[in-house]
Structure formats: C-alpha cells, structure tokens
C-alpha cells in the first residue's frame, strides 16, 4: 500500500517535471558576480517577462573564463567578465560570440564607457561586449590611524608595519608598477619590457612582505580585519570600502595619487548560449534608471549610463563623494586589454612573491 502511494507520487512528480518545459518557457542562465543579480531585480524581470526564468551563478573573472573554457562557451547564456578579459580570452579559447548591437538600447549609455569597451572588445569587426557597471581598485585607510596613506607604495611604509594588507593578485602588481613611475599598460606592447617591470615590482613587494599583516583573500576577511582595527590600511575594491564607510565613517576609499585602477564589468554572450533574446532583454532591463537604482544599492558599483552617480543610494553617494574629487575621476587608469601570455607572466611573479621568505 505504502509502496503504491510512493510510486504514485513519484509518477506525479515526473509528470510535473515533464510538463513544466511544455509551457515554452526559456531559462536565462546568468554567469555573473556576487550581488550583480539581486533578488528584487530578478523578481521584477520575471514579472515583466513571465516566460523567462532567470538562473544565476555567482563567480569571478578567472572562474568565469575557466567555466566557459571547459565547455567551449556552453552552459550559460550571458556572462559578465571585466572589459579587459574579453579580447585575449576570445582569441585563445573562442568562448564568446559577437553581439547584435541593434538589439541593445545604447541611447542612454555613457558614451565614453561604451566606446571604450567597444574599442577594447572588437575582433574582426564584431563587438563582443557592452558595459554594465564600473568601479575602481585603490586603497582604503582609517583616517584617524593612517592619515598619510595616498599612494600604492604607502602600504610598505614602515610606519604601519604589520598593519596593512593587500590581495596578492594582479591589481597590486599594476599599482606598484605605477607607484614606481612605470606605465605597465604601455609595456603590454613589449612583453620583455613588461617582464623587467614585473621583476622590479616583485623585488619591491618581497621586501614589503615584512610590512604586511596578511594577504586578504575575499571581501569578508578584508572587512573583518579593517573593522576590528587589526589593519589600518589596505589595497581594496572601492565597493568594499564604501560598505565599511557606512559602518565606520573613518574608513574611506583613497584613490592613489597615481590614479585608481578602473574596471568595467561588461555583458558578453557565451559562444554556445541558447537564449540570446532573453539575454538582450536582461541587458536592456537592468540598464533602465529605476533598475540601476536597485542594482547599485546591491553592488556599490556605478552603472554605465548617463547620470548614474545620482542613482546611487544616499550612503554610497556620500562615500563616493568622500573618496573622489573630479580630479581623481580624471586621473582614473582603466585596465588595458590583457594580451595573451601576460596572465602567465603575472601569475609566475605572484608565485615568486608568495614563496619568498622576506617577512
């Protein structure tokens, strides 16, 4: 008797799951950053397009490319890598497909960002990405305890020995290179020159190891170290700094004097994506001003549409204004396209720094 009932319910469940796709529903499989698809936005989108279901996978630049590379660009319908991670990844692994620009409403986009991303991601006449949100990497400091932090190399200032942190990733390599008066992005064209710069950067960061408390690995451990006062200054993403600003207004984002490094997260279509129309709908949907408001509240990043700064929630706006002057904005250094091979060189440098017993 019991078995019969179990069987019946099993059958019913199977019938249901078979019946579900019959309603011609498309699924939009989104591969994006944590907080880039807040629940309220997904809900509004599904209300507007009841035949589209959104499935979200949170990831980061490196993992997005690794995932798409593993399948040759299948498994997701829309990805959001940063603008510098499109060109080389496409050349090496062929994981994206060109966008149909006629399906994207670009009228409201900030022209400089749109043109910048287009210039960075055009391959053989096809445009592979459009901008979504942008933000910067720079420094953050507790004003009361480390008032003099204003350059990347200040993290190595012995005055703050054992009280600073950084993430051992490419951002700090580039920042340190700028602080030494080099222009790493210009050196991308000449990889031998770039290797020389990297060697100098490695030397500098190895001697600096003694000054660092620990390398942070994610926004959470960085926040914990900063809020507890275990460190007084660190390399950071601006959005993390803004979040901490709302909890302790002494903690501010500091654009380094050589310019904060700016990234633009984009929209790109994976090569074997199966729901392009839904993807275009999502792109146009989330760039509407009223949705941008919700999105920016969740991400802390600024959308790439006109007047986006005014769409930030009040506390984030205060944090941005406390951090950036117009001069700082003009001084932004946008990440340049990573040519093939550079990731490997940078990775090796990072390993050298990690393995060195300087501190």
């Amino acid at each position, binding site marked *: 008797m019991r078995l019969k009932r179990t069987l019946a319910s099993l059958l019913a469940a199977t019938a249901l799951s078979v019946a579900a796709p019959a309603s011609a529903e498309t699924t939009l499989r989104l591969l994006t950053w944590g907080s880039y698809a807040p629940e309220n936005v997904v809900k509004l989108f599904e209300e507007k397009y009841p035949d589209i279901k959104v499935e979200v996978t949170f990831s980061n630049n*490196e*993992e997005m*490319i*690794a995932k798409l*590379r593993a399948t040759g660009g299948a498994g997701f319908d829309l990805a959001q890598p940063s603008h510098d991670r499109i060109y080389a990844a496409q*050349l*090496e*692994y*062929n994981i994206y497909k060109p966008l149909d620009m006629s399906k994207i409403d670009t009228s409201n986009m900030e022209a400089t960002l749109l043109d910048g991303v287009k210039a960075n991601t055009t391959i053989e006449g096809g445009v592979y990405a459009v901008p979504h949100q942008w933000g910067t990497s720079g420094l953050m400091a507790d004003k009361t305890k480390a008032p003099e932090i204003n350059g990347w190399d200040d993290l190595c200032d012995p005055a703050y020995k054992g009280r600073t942190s950084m993430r*051992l*990733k490419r951002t700090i390599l580039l920042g340190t290179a700028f602080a030494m008066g080099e222009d790493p992005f210009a050196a991308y064209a000449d990889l031998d020159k770039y290797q020389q710069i990297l060697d100098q950067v490695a030397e500098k960061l190895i001697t600096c*190891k003694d000054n*660092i*408390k*620990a*390398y942070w*690995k994610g926004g959470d*451990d960085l926040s*914990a170290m900063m809020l*507890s*006062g*275990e460190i007084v200054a660190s390399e950071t993403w601006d959005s993390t700094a803004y979040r901490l600003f709302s909890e302790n207004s002494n903690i501010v984002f500091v654009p380094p004097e050589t310019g904060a490094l700016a990234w633009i997260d984009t929209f790109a279509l994976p090569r074997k994506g199966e729901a392009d129309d839904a993807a275009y709908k999502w792109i146009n949907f989330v760039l509407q001003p009223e949705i941008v408001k919700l999105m920016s509240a969740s991400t802390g990043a600024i959308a790439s549409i006109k007047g986006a700064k005014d769409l930030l929630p009040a506390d984030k706006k205060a944090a941005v204004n406390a951090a950036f002057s117009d001069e700082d904005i003009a001084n932004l250094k946008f990440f340049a396209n990573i040519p*093939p091979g550079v*990731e*490997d060189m*940078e*990775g*090796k440098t*990072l*390993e*050298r720094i*990690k*393995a*060195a*017993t300087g*501190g």
Partner: protein
Amino acid sequence: MNKDIRRLTLILLFTPFALWIVLLIVIPHIGMFILSMREKVAPRVFEYGFGNYIEFANEPIYWNTLLRTGSMSLLVTAIALIIGFPVAYYIAKIAGNRTKGALFLICLIPLWVSDLIRAFGWILLLRETGVVSSSLQWLGLVDGPIEFLYNDVTVIMGLVYTVILFMIVPLVSTLDGMDNAMIEAGYNLGGNGFTVLRRIIVPYAMPGIVAGCIVVFMLTAGSYLTPILLGGKNSSWFTEQIYNQFITRYNWESGAAFGFLLLAFTSLVVWLGLKLSGQTLSSTVARS
C-alpha cells in the same frame, strides 16, 4: 541455471563499482594526462611533449612547495598518530561498552560541520581580536593583543584537527579486535608498561597505524581550504599552486602536470612508508 544467476549477481554487484572507477577516476585521469603533455606554443596551437614537467623541475619555487607540502603533511600525520593513538586505545580498551559509543560519537561530531566552517571557527578563535587573544588579555597574562593566525603552526594544528578522526577510526577497529589476555600475559611475563606497548600493542595495531597514516597523509597533502585560510603570507601549499595554474594563469596544461606530480609524489611517500615499516597494502588497508 544456478550458475547463471550467480554470475548475474556478481556482474550486477560489480557494475556500480566498475562504473565508478572507470567514469570518475580512470577516464578523467587519462584526460588529465593528455592535457599535461600538451605545450602551448601560440594561441590555440599546441605541441605534445614533456615541457610542463621539465618546467616544474627547472623552477625551484614549484618543487620547494611540493617538498614543503610533503614534509608538513608527514608532520601532521605524526602528530595525528601521537594524539590519536591514546584516544583510540582508551576508546577500544579502557572505556566501558556504553561510554565507548558515546566517545566515538563525540569524535565524529566535528565531521558533521563542513571544512570551511571549521576553518572559520579557528579564525574566530585565533585572530588578533579573537577569543583566545582577548581572554588572555582579560586574564592579565599578556599585555597586548597576540596574533595566532597566519603561521605554519596554526596550519598544522588546523590540519591535525581536521584529519585526526581518520586516524582514530582504523586504530579503534584494530585495537578492538585485540584480546585483553595478550596484554595481561605481557605483564605476567614481567614486562613493564613500555615493553608491553612496544612489543605487543604496537605490533598488533600496526595494520591500523599504517592504514590511518596513509589516509591522513593523503588527505593532508591534498587539502586546500585549511592551509589557504589559516596560512600566512609565506605559506604556500601545493594544491594552491595547482589552483593558480588552472584558474589565475589559465595554464591548464601545467596545472594538469602538477596534479600528476602530486599524485606521484604522495604515492612514492606511501610506498616508502610501507617499505620502511615492512607492511604491504593488503596486510594493512585491506584488513583494518
């Protein structure tokens, strides 16, 4: 007829195991091996050869990390054995039948919580503004906050905590099968506690010891989360190198080669351990 049924039963019982081995272990490893033999010469152009392995041999950072991982894993194994043996002996020989179950359960409980949560637990306890540091200050034992995190001692402690259960379980099951009369006989023949331990208990428990050591060593050398989260700015772990090769450097070819090197290295250490202790796989892992 009867014979056919028996053969069918055997095939049916064997199929899931064979599928498991072939689909999840043999085929992926063949794929990884082919990947590890590829060398990238230009975007989307590859050549076959031993380049990735040669690169490993030429770069001291890589093999130093591998040796470091190996030696620290051996240390973790030794500590786990030293702590685990008395615990296992108590559970198997001294505790009463009822307490035995309860004690075993207490050992199992940490395993119900994921690795990640356990690592974060250690972080909360040991960080500079954490529980241990602030209690020591409150007790007046130290003047300022102390940082316990981010060094090799913490990594080893965290790893021992994570893996010690896999040492205790085989030891308990081996010691459980030992007749108490053997220990009594040892004492009756005039042996002291140390002699009994050395001449009777340890030789009897050897299969359990070797099995536990193998499992613990393999788990430690292949662990990722604990060394990454608790380790400091100088503590590289070989699994981290593999992750970096695959994810940060987009260099799957060399990552696959590193994976094989780790497998070969740990197998070599286990083989050496078996040779030195005069045991074989069939006399230890299969028995305990």
